[in-house]
Structure formats: structure tokens, C-alpha cells
């Protein structure tokens, strides 16, 4: 599906969507409470069939945490990027999509481990790489610990 058609489709679901910065793939910025609905619809819609989530990650920006979803279809091979901006850096939280794609379950655990973003309704939200008693979230820009190399 072409970018224009995707834009029309997603705007019909979420009128408040914003176009993203990516020039490579069509990208849409969505409100946090809409992402689960849009993800589910993109997977179910016969013309998009986004059945494969190949990357889910986050980044720490000035305007908040960005949660980025890279989706593709194994039938049509078109890619779409969804983005959610979480301005609340103290207590960031977004609904899980692990009930739609199982791969998201582990991506979300990784994001929770390294960024501290909570995924609501996640079946097993624990730290993945670090120990359970680790203090802080290392990939946040303001993260400091006793052995950080200052630059």
C-alpha cells in the first residue's frame, strides 16, 4: 500500500495522527491510548496485513520518550512505522501490543529494562538483561552510576 493510502486509512481511524520525520518509511505519530487499536486494525485489515513486528524500541528525546514500532507485512512487504510520544518522563506508560504480536513481549521487556517505560497489561513485565535489584534505567540520557565514564 502506498503512503497516501496508508495516511488516508490511519487518519480515518485516528484523526489526530501526525506525520513523522522518517523519509524512508511512512511514519505516523499516534496518541498513546490509540496505538493498540491502530496496531490491531493494521494487522486485521485485508489490504495492510501487518502481521510481522520486526522492531520495537524507544528513544529518550527532549520532548519525552518515543516508542517506535516497525511493522511489515509478510504478504505485501510494505513497511509502516508507528510512534508514540510519552511526555511524562517520571512515569511513562503505554498499552502493550504483545497480545497482537508475540515478538513484542520480549522487545517490551527489553525497553522496560533499559528505559523504564511501563507497558500496561503486559503478561510478564520483568527486567530482561539487568538484575532485578538494579537501580535506574541505563539507556535514559540522565542515567548516572558510579562507573559512568564522563565525557
Amino acid at each position: 500500500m502506498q503512503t497516501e493510502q496508508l495516511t488516508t486509512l490511519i487518519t480515518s481511524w485516528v484523526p489526530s495522527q501526525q506525520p513523522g520525520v522518517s523519509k524512508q518509511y511512512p511514519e505516523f505519530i499516534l496518541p498513546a491510548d490509540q496505538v493498540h487499536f491502530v496496531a490491531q486494525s493494521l494487522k486485521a485489515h485485508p489490504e495492510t496485513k501487518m502481521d510481522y513486528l520486526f522492531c520495537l524500541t524507544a528513544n529518550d528525546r527532549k520532548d519525552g520518550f518515543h516508542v517506535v514500532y516497525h511493522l511489515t507485512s509478510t504478504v505485501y512487504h510494505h513497511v509502516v512505522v508507528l510512534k508514540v510520544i510519552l511526555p511524562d518522563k517520571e512515569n511513562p506508560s503505554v498499552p502493550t501490543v504483545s497480545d497482537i504480536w508475540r515478538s513484542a513481549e520480549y522487545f517490551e521487556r527489553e525497553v522496560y529494562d533499559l528505559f523504564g517505560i511501563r507497558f500496561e497489561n503486559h503478561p510478564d513485565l520483568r527486567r530482561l538483561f539487568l538484575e532485578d535489584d538494579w537501580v535506574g534505567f541505563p539507556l535514559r540520557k540522565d542515567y548516572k552510576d558510579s562507573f559512568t565514564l564522563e565525557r
Partner: protein
Amino acid sequence: MDIELKEKEEYIINMGPQHPSTHGVLRFELCLLGEQVKYVIPHCGYIHRGIEKMCEHLTYPQLVHLTDRMDYLSAHINNEAVALCVEKSMNVEVSDRVKYIRTILSELTRIASHQLWWSAFGMDLGALTTFFYGLRDREKILDIFEESTGSRLTQSFITPGGLMGDVHPNFQKRVAEFIKYFRKKLPEYDQLLTGNVIFRERTKGIGIMSKEDAIDYGVTGPSGRGSGFHCDIRKIEPYSAYPFVEVNEVTLTEGDTYARYLVRIKEMWESLNILEQLVDNVPAGPIMLELKAIKAPKGEYYQRVETARGELGVYIVSDGGPSPARMKFRSPNFSNLFIINKLAAGHKIADLVAISGSLDLVIPDIDR
């Protein structure tokens, strides 16, 4: 002392983090009923080095060196992924010579990786001989790498803008010799293991993965293609010299351990075909672009490549500085690991070893 036997009770046992068949520091928490596995919980993080965080403090040519240490058996391909992503962001294109050499190195890496996997897989199942045969042939590829790049395992040869240096004058001759040599040796692999009755009994019908599960969990590479999931990035989003050559995607539909094994054996033949199309046609040209500074402009960039184990994604968020604001590696092994509970539940412990061997996990790539 009387020992009370409790055969009907479940018990929990740890496999790893130091266990020969986990191929690295990975721990499986197994729940067993007798010898049968009820469930497997993988615990990772034993070799987490924070490569993504380190990348935020390094320039692009510097951070290429860290990517070797993720999936160390696909070092060239990891370097290539970063190089392609940075080049895409700067909107520059390398010369055809660089593209050809990159693809030849990548395909050699793929063969070397599959050879080591084949060696270790045989050993997992109790066939020691495969290790000697596999490493004998892998040595030839490492010698080619050593001659041209100066290193055998962590080469860091492919860099944003081109290559670290030109390849050795012998390079093409030796690759051509290797293709001839390995075409003779590859049938031995089939004679030793593929046709072996014990091996077939151990692998056929074990750990069946459906295509839907492969897509749902994001299992890519030969493991996913063994279930009929068409996920070869060389076909979907061709990069470097792949558009110039004929690439045949190997897929099987059975989805069991034996199918994943066969896909890798067939991929070695396929890689030889690709190498044959490239090795005599390497054009002349510059090996490094003349760039003032290697900086990704402000924006977000994503590059997908096919490593020996599946889809590697490099995601760069840049503010325009010399180092990225955020670097994410979508590593293939990370996504391939977590299906193991679904595959191994209900099988014996020895089958779990066969299944985890057939997924071809490299642990530093999971943890990064």
C-alpha cells in the same frame, strides 16, 4: 540413608550459564517431569555489555568496531549494516567495487558461520567428527579474511564510506580456489550427517515450528525459512551487490529441526552460487568515498540486512552530530531465542539440545 524416589513430581533445574550446548552464557530454567521438559524459561543478560549505550559516545567509524562483538560469526555483515545505514543517511553511494567486495565478504562469512554451526550441531548430538571436518574448511575462509583484512574473527573491515583498505591481490584467486575446493567437500557433509539414520531419528519431527508462530515471534533467517517464512532480506530489500546477482531463497515447509538443518546446508550451496557470479566480475574503482566528515544528518534511519542467522536491523536516531543520539540493533538471535519454550515443551532434554542447536544461537548477539 533411604532415598525416596519421587518420579511423579516436577522439579526445576538450571541448564547453563556454563553449558556446552547453550553455546555461550545463556541459562535455561527447565521444569522437568522425569526426563520430559514441561517448560523452558530463558534467562539472558550474562554478557550484556551495553553496546547501544556505548555507541552514543562514539563516532560512526568507531562504533563499527563494537558491532563485530555482537554476532561475532557474522562480523562482516554487522559492519555492513552500520555502513549502509550511515551511507543511506548521508545520501551517498559507494562504488561498484566496494559493493562487490562487501557482498563477497558477506557470503564468505555466511558460509563460515554455517560451517561452524554444522560442526557444533553435530557435536551437540554426539557426533564429534563433524567438528574436525567443519573447522578444516572454515580455516580456508579465515585465511582469506586474514590475508585481506588482517584479522580472522573481528575484522571491522567494512566501514561507513567504503572499506578500510583494498583487498589483497590474491583475494579473487583464493576465493575462486575456495569455491572449487568447497564444492568438492560439501557432499562430505551430507555423507557424514544428513544421511545418517541416527541423526535423522534425532531431528525429524522434533520441535515443529509453524509458519504462523515463526512470523508471530519474529523468527527469521534459516530458522524461519525452515518453516516456510519468506524472510530473506536479500530478496525483500536487496542491498550492496545483491541486485546484480541471482539469489534463490531457500525455504522448506516442514518446520522441524531437520528442516532447519537442511536449509542451512542448502544455503551453503546457494552462497557458493552467489560467490561464483561475483568473484570474476569485481570492477575497478575507488575503495573509499572522499567525505569531509562522516555524520548522519538530523533524522531517523533504518537498515535491514540478512546475517547468517536472520534479519539484523540498525536504527539510528541522529541529531546531526558525529555520534548517534540513539542506536538500536534489532538482532536476529534475540527474536529467535524466545520461541524455544514453544518448541521444546513436551520433548526430552536431549531434544532441547537439538532444538537450541538448530536455532543457531549466538549469545552475545542476544544480550548486546
